[in-house]
């Protein structure tokens, strides 16, 4: 809770590490959500469709870029 309060405090800016973490979590979350479409919607046919494949690729790329930002520490993003 105090961390969230700190993030929304005046003057706070996102660091490279925090941005990387957000991208990693966002990318992994998006990956799972895209795959979940097929798991939850059992009636769908044809498996992972072309639009899903593009979205999966984009989500994976975001997560990967996020990982590369983690070592950059507190430098402002």
């Amino acid at each position, binding site marked *: 809770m105090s961390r969230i309060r700190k993030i929304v405090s005046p*003057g706070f*800016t996102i660091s490279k590490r925090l941005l990387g973490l957000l991208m990693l979590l966002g990318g992994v979350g998006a990956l799972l959500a895209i795959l979940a479409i097929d798991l939850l919607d059992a009636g769908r046919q044809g498996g992972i469709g072309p*639009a899903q494949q593009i979205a999966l690729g984009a989500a994976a790329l975001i997560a990967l870029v996020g990982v*590369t930002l983690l070592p950059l520490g507190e430098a402002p993003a």
Partner: protein
Amino acid sequence: MTELPLSRPLSASPVRSDALLYTASRILTIVALAILMGYGVVYIAYAANLIAFPFDYDQGEGFELVDTLLFSQGELPYKDTDVYPFYSSNYPPLFHVMAAPFVPVFGTGYWYGRLLGFLGTLVTAGAIALAVYREGRRPTIALLAALAFLASNTVYHIGPLFRQHMTMVMFETLAVVVLAHMDAIPSLRRRRWGLFAGLSLVLAAGYTKQLALTTALAVFAFLFIRSPRRAIISGVLFGLAGGAIFLWLNIATDGQWWLQTISANVNEFIPSQTWGLYRLWFALHGFLIVPALMYALYELYFSRLSIYTIWTIAGIGVGVLSGKWGAGDSYFATSIAGICLLSGIFFARLLNGDLAVPRNPIARFTIDPLRRAAPIVAAGSLLLVPLCYIGYGRAVLHLPTEGAGFAVIADLLGIEANARNGFYDSAGRIAGGYADIGHFTTQADIDAGWRIVERVRAAPGDVLSEEAAFNLLADKPVIGNPTQLLNLANNGLWDPTALVALIEARQFGLIVLRAQFYPPDVLQAIAAHYGQDEVIAMNGFNYLLLVPKSE
């Protein structure tokens, strides 16, 4: 943190080889400027040609004019398409509202909408030049970046059309340019006004075309990175303002706003179209895409992310949607503005030698081994920067091969027409969704258009025309908007009964088809009850004129 320059200006070592290098750089820069200015001349000639053309040039322009006419009469164009005259718009209102004041003064015409689109591209180019100059203080690079935008085949194709896309790009570009340096404004009051102005421009872009949603996301991502608190507060206010307009439009149109602009826009996705258009985009703009992405990587790992970078990446990403049925190469226009802007900043800063790189884990493996090469990078950039613009100028080659001046240049370059009406275009249809436009219209096209208008005027009763111009110029009501009816039909949101009944009853004195974009039910009814009477070629397309079959 220690920062070292990635490149250094050469002026510190005034030796003879430097003088030669600078001379070569100047000559190459002049060549690049001459090439891109040449495209500026072609663009102005094309715009003048289209502004004088009184009919649809690109499919669907006439319906933008119908929307404008409705707004000028105080009517909203989001109507129930199940009932006569089966017409509705699928675009947000702002562009048409901007064109509407011309109607009471000049009447029905395409020229003012095309002029607005054309002027919008000039404003965008100006904003790109301003942004590049502000970051790098190099007026020549700023000018080259602006001209590069106008030289893009995509911008050239759609800039002077009676369509809202480039006006959306104008608002998007102005928004990011206004917001880019907002934090540097010392006065809190002025900073807030800057934020208000920037977000108002984003809202304007969104109410010009739905695609600007990506720019809104990019803008708020930037604001969030810089100050989450400010992003959340301004995001809530922005959402309330945008939502209020949305709600009002939906209530005022009895839900048609949602149906026609949102629900009807969910179209089939064609992956091959997306990949084809990305390939085309890269083939034409690669000389600027690569530097722009290098600069984006520089900001990501060694500096702070600017709004320009986030916006450009978002613009490149939204190109995925170009694979939707009805979408096309125009969906890359935002990314083209972004790459022209970003590559311009990269070039200017590279030449200035002020791309500082901090010592960090990424630099240790990527930049540090290359630091000794900094003088070579500086020397190389003097030639590489103008060569990139020259290479870009070669990649986007497009010009008429006929007519005074142009024929001589085409002969000198050894090129022959590969598009309609004696036009050469290095872009071309390698995938669906590509707009086959860019050629100039001729007097024969205008004559052919008036012949169709005469046929429409002479026909008894209403005329069902796939393009609105003929009906408007013949003072007949415009019946339906074929692509919108098809969008609705594909989503199961349109009941064709009433229109099909009129066709079956042969109520239309004449039917004019071009691309046959009507829904299948309508096309089948037309085929059963109407027969081809005449084919008139105009602007490279065959217009089929159909009359009722005898009972």
